[in-house]
Structure formats: C-alpha cells, structure tokens
C-alpha cells in the first residue's frame, strides 16, 4: 500500500472542509437564495465597470446598483457584499453619489446588517476606495498607501449642518496658492450649496422611499487641488431641484409647466432655475447660490459647473453654451461639481508645484 504524502493529506482535508461548507450552506439557506449567496453568505452586488453618471449606459448600471443596495438594506434588511472586481474607473460625481448612499445605509442600519466588499483588481480603484474612506467605513483592513497622482489629492468630508470650518480641510494645504478673493468665492459657493441642501433638499422624503431614513449626514463633499485646478463636488440625497419646485415655489413651477409641459425635461428645469436665479422658497429675497456658481464659471477661464439633479443634467463650461439633458432615470438627489483654475499668490518666488 502506498504511503500517503503530506501534500495529499492536506489536499484531502481542504476538499473535505469545502464539501462540508457547501453542505451546511445547502442545508441552512433557502433553496431559492442559493444562486445569490456569495461571500460570507451575503447577497452579492456586482459594481459596474465604470462609475459615471454622464454616460447613459454606466449611469443606468450605477443607479440600479444603488437601488439594489437600498432595497436590500432598508426593505429586506439583508446584508450584502459589493464586488468591485470588475470596476476599472470611478468618476468623481458618480463616486460621490455612491459614497453618500453607502454611508447613509451604514449610518442608518449598519448595526443591523453586515456590509462588506470584495476589493477590486484595479490598483487605482483600490487606492480610490481607500482614499475616500470606503474601507474604513466598512471596517475592512487595507494597508495600501495611495500613490497615483489622480487619487492622492482627493479629500472627502461630510456633515449634518453648515459648519464651514470644514472648508479649511478642503483648502488649507493649498491656501497659499489661492488668492484671497478667489478663496472667498469658493467659500461662498460651497456654503451656498450646503445651505441649499440643509434648507431645501430634505423638505420631503423622496417619493419612492418614504420609509427610508436620512439620518446623521446630510451632505457629502469631495475636493481636489491638482496642478492648477480646484475641483469641488457636493452631493445631497434630497428631493432635487425639480422635485422641490411645486411645493417651494409654485409660481415658478407654473411657469415651468407652461413652458415645458406637466412632466418637464428635468435638465431644462434646472436650466430655468439657474438662469432665473430664483430661490426655491416663496420669498423672493433668497437664492443666490446658483448665481454665484454661474458667475464664477463665467468669469474664470477653464471653469466648469455641473448640476445633476434627479434625472436632469446641466453642464456649463466657460465660454460655451450649457449642455442640458434628461437621462430618464433619477439619482434621487443633487450633485454639484465645480472646477476652476486657482491663481498663484503674486510673486512669492516659489515653485508651488
């Protein structure tokens, strides 16, 4: 009789353990869920290859993923594992929306359900998830140090109110590179974007999610100073610009309906609101937030402004006409992205790059 080698013995043990695990799962998990049971017995959600809201194909996939996450967490009360294996690219506005939704889920029901993720194959995406705090949020150990130049400069912050001391977190490392007047404009833009969120975004629960809570954090922000450009991205999970008009500004809503019809193109609604610079409240003295953003975009070359609200999309680049779209599927919230060159402090003689 042949002697059993160590290698053969170890292989047999591994196979036995694997068969035992499969038998336990088969016997304890309902048959109809066998297909979906994955890592740690959690539902598996496959993250899209590209996180981008500007492309209709990727937008649909990302929104579907977020819907699934919310449905599992808030309706079925089931934990899930987000599989990032296929993810290759993450664009800021889409990534911030995902981050906000995930953080909202974790802060609301994270103590009741388990949420994990399978790390991506892409090194860059791995660095992004670390840099924006996803691993920390899900308590997943990660020892990487982001090195990619498109990743290391991103900062994340969030809040429940308008505490603009967080603004220093955004700009302090680069404060010496931004002249006072421009820094004050950025302050104004960020504070107005967050003020609009706090005052108006959560006036009603989102229509299909009346049972879903918005707790703790109300706004989320990415920021980056890279080279000569500052990028600010702010997100809320509120009713959106088009969603708030009927209640907050009925006269403007009537005007919108008379021009655009009773189910208006959301992008054109955003455009009307921005270009009229009218607040979404009943009193006419409010609402300079969008005006400030548009004015800075108009005056600073190479500036860009994006307002994505529900299914609407308004993108303005300096010197060009705005691009306005309605994608048909809603992000259930508002994302504002503002990109502008920063100006160096006059003649300090240093190379600040």
């Amino acid at each position, binding site marked *: 009789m042949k002697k059993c080698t160590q290698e053969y013995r170890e292989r047999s043990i591994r196979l036995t353990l694997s068969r035992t695990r499969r038998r336990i799962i088969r016997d304890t998990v309902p048959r109809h869920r066998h297909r979906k049971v994955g890592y740690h017995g959690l539902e598996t959600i496959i993250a899209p290859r590209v996180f981008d809201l500007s492309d209709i194909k990727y937008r649909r996939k990302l929104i579907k993923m977020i819907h699934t996450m919310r449905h599992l967490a808030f309706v079925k009360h089931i934990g899930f594992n987000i599989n990032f294996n296929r993810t290759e690219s993450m664009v800021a506005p889409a990534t911030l929306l995902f981050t906000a939704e995930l953080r909202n889920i974790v802060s609301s029901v994270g103590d009741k359900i388990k949420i994990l993720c399978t790390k991506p194959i892409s090194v860059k995406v791995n660095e992004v998830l670390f840099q924006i705090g996803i691993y920390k949020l899900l308590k997943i150990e990660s020892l990487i140090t982001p090195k990619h130049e498109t990743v290391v400069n991103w900062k994340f912050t969030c809040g429940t109110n*308008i505490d*603009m001391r967080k603004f220093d977190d955004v700009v302090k490392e680069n404060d010496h590179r931004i002249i006072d007047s421009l*820094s004050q404009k950025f*302050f*104004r833009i960020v*504070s107005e974007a967050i*003020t609009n969120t706090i005052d108006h975004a959560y006036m009603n629960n989102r229509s299909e999610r009346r049972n879903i809570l918005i707790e703790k954090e109300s706004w989320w922000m990415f920021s980056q100073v890279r080279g000569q450009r500052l990028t600010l991205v702010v997100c809320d999970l509120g009713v959106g610009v088009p969603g708030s008009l009927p209640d907050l500004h009925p006269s403007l809503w009537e005007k919108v309906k008379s021009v655009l019809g009773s189910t208006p193109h959301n992008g054109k609604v955003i455009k009307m609101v921005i270009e009229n610079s009218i607040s979404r409240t009943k009193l006419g*003295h409010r609402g300079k937030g969008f*005006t400030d953003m548009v004015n800075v975009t108009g005056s600073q070359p190479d500036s860009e402004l994006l307002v994505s609200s529900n299914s609407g999309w308004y993108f303005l680049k300096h010197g060009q006409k705005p691009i306005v779209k309605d994608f048909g599927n809603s992000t259930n919230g508002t994302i504002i992205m503002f990109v502008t060159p920063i100006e160096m402090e006059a003649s300090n003689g240093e190379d600040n790059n």
Partner: protein
Amino acid sequence: MEKIIINIANDFSRYPAGRYESDGPYPGELFRNKLLEPAVKKGFPFTIILDGTRGYGSSFLEEAFGGLIRLGYDPNKVKALINFEASDGSLVDEINQYIDLAARVK
C-alpha cells in the same frame, strides 16, 4: 458715547454661513440676534468690519441684514447707523441690496 465696533471675524466667526440658527454654528440669524440687532437698538452709529473671515455666504448676509428689515427696522435708519469697513466694496453693495429688497418685499 460708547463706540461700537463689530469685527465679524473676531467677535462672531471666521466662518459665517447659513441662514437659520438650526442650519449650523454661525448663521445669519444668530449674528443678527446676538450682535447686529442689539447694536442697532442702541441707536448710535457703529462700525462693522467685514474683513478677516473666510468669506460670506449670500444666505448669511441676506438673513442678517435683510432679516433686520423684516423685523421692522427702517432701512434708511439702518443704513445711516452702520459704517462698513471692507476691502471688498462689492460686499457692502450686496448688503445694501438685501436691505433695499427686504424693504420692498415687506
């Protein structure tokens, strides 16, 4: 006569933002209640120094100064009482606009 000088950055905050007291730690309503209205009530001219903050949200300025008019103060008297010191003259113009607009809407 006591000379009142309100330095917003030192006496209130370097980060004035938001409209209502529920919005955050340094909103326009709080500034108006805590510093602005008591100074106006005294009836003597006083100075507001706008420099030194990180910036001003338009909601903060509107609620602070426009809100004062909505409380019933005469806009011309308010303008006569307040002397602004600001390196950015457009801020003073903006505040005066909010005062005028609040008077019209009242």
